């Protein structure tokens, strides 16, 4: 008659519990957003938001079903929903950089349209020269029709991981939001600082 080998029993129990704990941990890992997420720099329309590598001010917004560039023979383009042009001034603060932009309206996220070609603010920004132009989005009309609705513009450089991201709150019934039949995107204004 032999006593049970407690060392072996403990070893087996420890192995089983390590596998069990690993499984629980594996099912509850932090999301990549929680690990690598950007650091939001919050601002409201009319206020400058300054991040590590970009600064921007939203000065107003225009909403219309049609849009055209202010140049000869530029076609007038219909939106699938409605056009939302966010008029802004932006400047890179460290090095030449291409912005990444999203407009969050209700539950949805939108990126700038490519149908107008590359607009100055979606191209490369330069340190020391502020660019005044617009980011243009195509958004379902009903999302921007409601009173009291807010949109949120997010602007960042690169892939945004563990870097600053500008988040600008835009109240859609503010007096600086204009609604018309046609948006005309004029030439950009470049201002040396």
């Amino acid at each position, binding site marked *: *008659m*032999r*006593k*049970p080998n407690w060392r072996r029993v403990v070893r087996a129990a420890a192995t089983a519990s390590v*596998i*069990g704990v*690993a*499984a629980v941990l*594996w099912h509850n890992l932090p*999301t*990549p*957003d929680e*690990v*690598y*997420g*950007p650091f939001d720099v919050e601002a409201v329309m009319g206020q400058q938001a300054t991040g590590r590598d970009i600064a921007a001010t939203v000065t107003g917004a225009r909403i219309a079903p049609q849009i055209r560039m202010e140049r000869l023979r530029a*076609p007038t*383009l*219909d939106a*699938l*929903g409605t056009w939302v042009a966010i008029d802004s001034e932006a400047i890179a603060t460290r090095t030449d950089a291409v912005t990444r932009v999203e407009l969050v309206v209700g*539950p*949805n*996220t*939108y*990126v700038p*349209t*490519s*149908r107008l070609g590359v607009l100055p603010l979606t191209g490369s920004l330069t340190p020391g020269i502020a660019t005044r132009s617009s980011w243009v*989005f*195509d*958004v*379902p009309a009903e*999302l921007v029709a409601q009173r009291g609705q807010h949109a949120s513009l997010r602007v960042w450089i690169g*892939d*945004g*991981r563990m870097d600053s991201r500008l988040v600008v709150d835009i109240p859609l019934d503010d007096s600086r939001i204009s609604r018309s039949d046609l948006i005309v995107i004029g030439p950009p204004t470049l201002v040396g600082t």
Partner: protein
Amino acid sequence: MEPARGSAATTVTARFRQWLAGWGLKEWRRAGLVAVLVATAAFGGLDTVNKQIVDTKPGEMFDTGRFEMTVQRATLVDEVRAGDRLIAGKRPGRRFLGLVATVRNTSTLPGFMDKPVDPVGIPDIHALPAMRLADGTLTGALGPGLTDQVVLLWDVPADAISVGAELQVHIWKELKRLNATYGQGWVQSVTDYARLTVPVGRPR
């Protein structure tokens, strides 16, 4: 006094040890298999993998999970024009394959419409930006809640497919996942897709 309990426990252990000692290779293999299944089950090892292939046809809507997509027709051309604007010029040995489709984004994120669509069996194929049928503007991502009729475009070898051929197309299901880096995104299913055959026509 302890002897009774101790001896009972010892007997059970001894019996168990004796039983194990009687195991042959077959039993140990089975035990090993059960151990591997139990250990991997905790990490999703026993999750169902069902390959689902749906047969569909031009004019029928297929829901990828992110897009409701209806393929209408396929066209093979030497160059791509939108009115008097040249989008892609003639090149020796190459042609352009267009797939006209109506697409609705039913998700909450913007998405590129050509991502889930895969023309099968064409080597050396390169995707070009999708083009709106209505005005020929290049449309990158389609926003959530929006519907558009677009031409999905590919640059293909001239001898890979011809007018009158039957083009095999796979439209992959898509799943919303967290990206490997950060944020949410859509990834293609590796098992589920719709397959359809589209006759390749001339430009209209």
